[in-house]
């Protein structure tokens, strides 16, 4: 008991404070975006804000349990958790419920559970466990392959369940791999693929490919001490060409119409004014409404419960994925910046604490936590502000949703537990 109290006392108060601030802000804004004139009663669980309040209590309960559990438990059982979670994901194919086209929900009683949210934790644990294993060498191709497999298995399953948004989150774990010493070439490749894909779509595949080949020849002709220069140039160039034409192929033949549209909107590819008009009524509608709402907030905002667009439910999904638009409208520039700073501090604090971990498992896990939170932050707010493509993933701790709130709380609690233990490492 004494030891436990000691552990609790060593929990990082900055993270906890930010957690509670975000939680409060979340419930407050869900209330604002979902009431319609009736009396406010936080214990009325038929309302969205009442439900979110209930989820908060459940989250706190699970968080408390997660913090109470012995550190070794997580490390030891991570593989089992991982396998279990994959099995549960697969079960979705048989028992899942389809919501908005994505087969990612279990319907239990009147509540829906989204296992993919929890898989983030188990994958993070599994990755941490695998990397921190003293037998693992990230320079070794087989180990690399195994690690990729750990990450790719859930991604593939989730893609097949038509929940592309959630699957993208797992890609954030490459930050972790990079931190832990995977070859620079991977990072270069990923950046290369992203840049060349965008260019191919924006300009054209042949031009981009030509440009890439010239760049590679240029690069290698100035680089000395490279063996098999010609072979390398040819192989890298062909990879680039494959990327460029592959992107177009995937874009045109594999992506569905609505996915194409999201990319069109993001990269401004559509030039036909008729079609733009049509898009404005459909996929651009959310984005425009959310931008309008945010813009109308001005510097100080319209005030809590006074956002005319929030009150009028102008932005669809404003309590979940578009929650940031209500903050922008009601709390204005100052409130929005405050929220962004909270996230920035939270994520950088986790990175900082991770770097200070003596235990490699804890460090990697911390990194996983930071990366996962960051990708949500980046994609969600980026989407609401019209900077990143429209991908429906929640804003951690703020967006409405029990599964995501509980999962994020657990993710963070486990890190707090690991971090609280750093002083009495074995």
């Amino acid at each position, binding site marked *: 008991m004494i030891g436990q109290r000691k552990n609790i006392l060593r929990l990082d108060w900055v993270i906890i404070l930010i957690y509670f601030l975000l939680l409060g802000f979340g419930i407050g804004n869900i209330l604002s975006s979902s009431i*319609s*004139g009736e009396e406010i009663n936080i214990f009325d669980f038929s309302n969205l804000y009442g439900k979110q309040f209930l989820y908060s209590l459940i989250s706190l309960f699970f968080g408390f349990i997660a913090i109470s559990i012995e550190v070794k438990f997580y490390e030891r059982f991570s593989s089992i958790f991982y396998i279990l979670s994959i099995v549960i994901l697969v079960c979705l194919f048989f028992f899942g419920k389809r919501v908005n086209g994505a087969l990612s929900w279990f319907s239990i009683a009147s509540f829906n559970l989204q296992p993919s949210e929890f898989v983030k934790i188990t994958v993070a644990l599994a990755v941490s466990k695998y990397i921190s294993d003293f037998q693992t060498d990230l320079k070794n191709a087989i180990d690399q392959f195994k690690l990729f497999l750990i990450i790719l298995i859930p991604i593939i399953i989730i893609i097949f369940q038509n929940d592309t948004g959630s699957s993208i989150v797992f890609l954030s774990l490459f*930050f972790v791999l*990079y*931190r832990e*010493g995977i070859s620079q070439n991977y990072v270069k490749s990923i950046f290369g693929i992203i840049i060349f894909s965008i260019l191919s779509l924006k300009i054209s595949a042949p031009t981009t490919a030509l440009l890439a080949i010239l760049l590679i020849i240029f690069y290698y002709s100035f680089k000395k001490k490279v063996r098999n220069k010609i072979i390398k140039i040819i192989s890298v160039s062909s990879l680039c060409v494959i990327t460029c034409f592959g992107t177009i192929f995937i874009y045109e033949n594999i992506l569905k119409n609505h996915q194409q549209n999201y990319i069109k909107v993001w990269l401004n590819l559509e030039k036909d004014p008729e079609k733009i008009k049509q898009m404005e009524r459909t996929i651009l509608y959310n984005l425009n*409404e959310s*931008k309008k709402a*945010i*813009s*109308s*907030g*001005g*510097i100080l905002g*319209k005030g809590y*419960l*006074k956002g*005319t*667009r929030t*009150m*009028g*439910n*102008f*932005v*669809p999904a404003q309590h979940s994925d578009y929650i940031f638009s209500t903050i*922008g409208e009601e709390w*204005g*520039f100052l409130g*929005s*910046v405050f929220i*962004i*700073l909270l*996230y*920035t501090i939270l*994520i*950088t604090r986790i*990175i900082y604490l991770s*770097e200070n971990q003596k235990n490699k498992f804890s460090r990697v896990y911390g*990194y996983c936590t*930071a*990366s996962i939170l*960051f990708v949500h*932050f*980046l994609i969600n*707010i*980026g989407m609401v*502000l*019209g*900077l990143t493509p429209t991908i429906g993933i929640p804003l951690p701790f703020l967006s409405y949703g029990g599964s995501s709130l509980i999962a994020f709380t657990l993710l963070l609690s486990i890190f707090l537990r690991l971090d609280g233990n750093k002083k009495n490492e074995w």
Partner: protein
Amino acid sequence: MRKILLFLIVITTSVVFILRLFYLQVYASEPYSIYEDNAIRKVLTYPKRGYIYDRNNNLLVSNQPSYDVMIIPGLVKELDTLEFCDLLKISKTYFDNKIERTSRYSRRIPSVFLAHLSKEDYGFLAEKIRKFDGFYIQKRNLRQYNTKIGANVLGYVAEVNRSNLEKDNYYSQGDIIGKQGVELSYEKYLRGEKGIKFIQKDRFNRDIGSYNNGLNDKNSIAGNDLIITIDSELQEYGELLMSNKKGAIVAIEPSTGELLSLVSAPPYNPNLLVGRERSKNYFELYKDSIYKPLIDKGLLSTFPAGSPFKVIVGLIALQENVINDKNTILCGGEYIYGRNKKSMKCHCGGGYRNIYNAISESCNSYFADAYRKTISKDNNISKNFDMWSEGVKSFGLGNYLNNDLPIGKKGMIPTSEFYDRWYPDFRWGPTTNLSNSIGQGEILVTPIQLANMITAVANKGYYYTPHIIKQIQGDSIPLRFRQKNTIEIEKKYFDIIEVGLSKVYKNGTGKLLNIPGIEICGKSGTAENFTKINGKKTQLTDHSIFVAYAPKNDPQIAIAVLVENGYYGSTWAGRISSLMIEKYLKGSISNRGIEKLVINKSLDDEYKKPFSKKPFNINKL
């Protein structure tokens, strides 16, 4: 690098987000105004327009509810036009027209689609209108006239026009505004203050309740009630007496300047200008080019003042000491003047004339002489003339009275400059414009100016600017109606003139106009007037004019009557003056015969002469 890459990316992302927010919320954001927010429906609540009472607290004007079908063109979806038109009892053409016009005005701002539904139509429509997107029914207050008289005084209200909207941002499309009379003069008091309700809309443009619990809403404030100076009984009687005649009666309470009645004949029923038939009725009145009922003749008719003007000529001559109450002249039926022995006719009957019987017999010669003496005194013609002109103007002539009726005319009192311009190479003198002495020539007045003039005479040297407002609920009447305008002529000269004016009724032009028990002072007048027929100046039958006040010792009413083309002043205007005075002072009429005669007299033939396209005679009894 490996340790700080994620850190750097996080920081970069935050900075980009903050910059983006700055762009959206600070740089590109317009200052927020709830009035511009299309997520909020603004519903105006209209206040009660102020009531108008007469001086005896009779309610003249109140309100009645009216229902307008409003349209927001941008929200109109496809609808069953046929059904809709049937429902509103309108034609397809009207529908298309209105849609086109309102859309052109604004697609977002509500416009009136169909005004003034009847109560039955409203009850029926209220249920069904919800089916049609972009249409709704708005309640509005219409004016309700509880009287048939005084349309020219009360004025009317109508929908605001573009220039009203531009001048005063209080108004929005479809509001009503006072367009004439008291409704216009006291619009600011009568209209009250509109309230506004902010209704939260959702993205399907449905109302979902009041915004911010109604804390931003404003209640409407009712308009102030007005009491006007008109005695509606007297006004009604005046309108009755003026039956089938053109002209005006202006009666003033001398001690206050309050307008007891302001009759413009022919009158029209104010109820004609309310409701859906308004435009049609208005046009009917507008196109009557013979009687011109929409022209307020009490305020807008200008005509030569005629003999009543002699009162002023006499007063100024007395004040200038060029005549006195003992002077006499011999009138030989005409006044000979000038090198060429020009003559001015006089109908007084001839004989020795002093100031008293010159007034009572309306002797032209006497006042021509007095005028001539005034202007040529000390041989300083220009200066004397301007002094004389100023003296005349101090009676409220020759300029706007600055009263509280929105229309008026200046009339005309010439100055020396006027004649200098007229006769640049010629040394003009009193004989050049001698007809000024008898109120002809260049002198032009309006009935209200004439009434004000006789008021000043009744008060013996001062007047209050005639006004229509007696009391404003919650405010005092404008200061300018509570201040005396004084005339720089000594009271003793007024006393002299009064004796003459009283003699008019004893043995002068008004000896048949006496009312038992009331001592009246008055002066008849006959004004020559002309019109243009096919560009040719043609003389018409003289206007019959009369000014009077009574009782002599304590004037309660001063009155000016104009009967257009009524010939002798005492014939019609004089009779009407006496009847009005008796009605006001006694409340009943002693000589029903005269009353009947006046009411039944029609001058229709006279008014149709200029339009008959045939030669005609004038000045026949």
